[in-house]
């Protein structure tokens, strides 16, 4: 029922591989804390790989939005990678699909970040 998070670095981008459920409680808190930790370490280019996320509720959607605005407000970039159809549909009906920068290929997602 819970969410799994692992992080890796590719060309200065932090990729967070998420799996499971992002829902009220554990999943949302895990995501919030992980993004906060990355920002505290100065890692502001973040790519959330949602390919293994099989469920997200309104709280999880809200957490994605909060992560996006928090990173942006600190001068960073947060993008989404590999949306499942369910998550894609949810972002469509909530009109968030055009808010997020959504990628479906990791290499091109990495290349899309502004490199200093």
């Amino acid at each position, binding site marked *: 029922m819970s969410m799994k998070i692992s992080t890796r670095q590719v060309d200065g981008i932090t990729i967070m591989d998420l799996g499971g459920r992002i829902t009220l409680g554990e999943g949302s808190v895990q995501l919030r804390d992980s993004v906060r930790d990355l920002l505290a370490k100065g890692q502001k280019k973040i790519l959330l790989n949602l390919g293994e996320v099989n469920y997200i509720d309104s*709280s999880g959607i809200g957490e994605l939005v909060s992560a996006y605005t928090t990173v942006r407000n600190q001068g960073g970039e947060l993008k989404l990678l590999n949306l499942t159809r369910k998550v894609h549909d949810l972002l469509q009906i*909530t009109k968030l699909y055009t808010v997020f920068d959504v990628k479906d290929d990791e290499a091109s997602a990495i290349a899309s970040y502004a490199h200093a």
Partner: protein
Amino acid sequence: MTGQQASRVTYTLDSSLDSVNKVEQTAEQMARKAGVDEDEIFRISMAVREAAVNAVLHGNAYDPEKRMTASFENTGSDLVIRITDEGKGLDPATLPDPLAPENLLRGSGRGIFLIRSFMDEVHFKQLHPGTELTLIKHLGTAPTGA
């Protein structure tokens, strides 16, 4: 479980995330048993989860003294799910539109919108105290929502 008659099952639950998960799982099982497709099962169980979250979090505010009730009924033509809380009440007319540009980047406020998107009918009833949400999915109709 506190009561059962015909095809209606009612649970009285404490105000916890475990209760939310139980209600969601029950909705999923009910929808699956009714023979609706996988996409509709997802929509129904998610709408019911959102209603339960609303009851536990916004209604009862995790108060251990307050209960949520959840009833599930397959009438043959409809799936009817009723979720009640013992909170201060909810006026749906006062909820901000989560699709409005000024609200798009808010971190919350999408639960009721998703419920309305995924169910065929949603009814609010003010209790004293609390709120009752009735969620209805017509059986045998084309999928709606996303």
